């Protein structure tokens, strides 16, 4: 088989836990054989049933086509169902995903850095401590190479209308100028060569 191009799906952040363990009788012998929920399956479930987006909106957020989203989502449900019915653990790990973290630049020491703790705002440079930091867009197609070109856009989850992303301003605070729908960050998909799917 020739190497296939595999799309990396966008996931807003890793889940807060590594998995679930069943309790009650007749569960212990199953503990060694967990059901593996992939990050993208966790994310599909989170967007659809926790954030309550419809499949179209959720597919936009994850940067995949709607049929692909539906497939990922169906797999998530099927895995959770078998864990429940068969009394198996669920481990949440792996998957062809990238976590989305914003990049910043320090005007004092001229370093670039990302913010893996998305919940905490960036207040200072992690290298020199300067507060002269501003948002910066990394070129998505060549790893973490700084680029003046912005690929990011905010996209309306209702009508698909796109506006350029303003660094430092979360897209989900933007309102669609067309239909007043909720906006989300849209990312150009990343590709990577994977040996096997």
């Amino acid at each position, binding site marked *: 088989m020739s190497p296939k191009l595999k799309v990396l799906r966008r996931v807003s952040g*890793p889940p807060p836990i590594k998995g679930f363990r069943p309790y009650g009788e007749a569960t212990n012998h199953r503990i060694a054989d967990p059901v593996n929920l992939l990050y993208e399956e966790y994310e599909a479930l989170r967007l659809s049933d926790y954030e309550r987006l419809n499949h179209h909106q959720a597919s936009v957020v994850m940067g995949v086509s709607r049929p692909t989203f539906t497939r990922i989502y169906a797999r998530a449900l099927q895995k959770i169902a078998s864990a429940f019915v068969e009394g198996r653990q669920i481990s949440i790990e792996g998957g062809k*995903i990238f976590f989305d*973290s914003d990049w910043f630049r320090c005007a004092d020491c*001229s370093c670039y850095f990302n913010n893996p703790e998305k919940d905490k705002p960036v207040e200072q440079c*992690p*290298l020199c*401590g300067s507060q002269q930091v501003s948002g910066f867009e990394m070129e998505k197609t060549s*790893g*973490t190479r*700084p680029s003046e070109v912005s690929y990011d856009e905010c996209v309306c989850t209702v009508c698909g209308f796109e506006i350029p992303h303003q660094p430092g301003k979360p897209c989900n605070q933007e309102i669609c100028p067309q239909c007043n729908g909720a906006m989300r960050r849209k990312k150009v998909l990343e590709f990577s060569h994977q040996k096997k799917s």
Partner: protein
Amino acid sequence: MKAAITSTGNTLDSLLDQHFGRCQYFVVYDTDSKSIEFLPNPFKTMEEGAGYSVVQLLVSKGVNKVISGEFGLKVKPILDSHKIQMIIIKDPNKRINGILELLNHY
């Protein structure tokens, strides 16, 4: 806080190594205790998966920041999934002692 800096050599005046996965040494710096450890990169000649192995090694050392000249497309999601912060210095003339000085604001 522990930072790993990619280094071309095992002395404080070595230059920052521009490659993350295939650097010569990692300098693991503990900003609390100010301890410095030079770690030869055992994966620098590995043909594939060097980035993955390097991240596992750094995770086992408790590193939560990595400083290098560039991070590849494959290693970035691995670092992100461990919530390790990436810092990029686009200056091939930067030396390890200069970077440690910057970090000492902590």
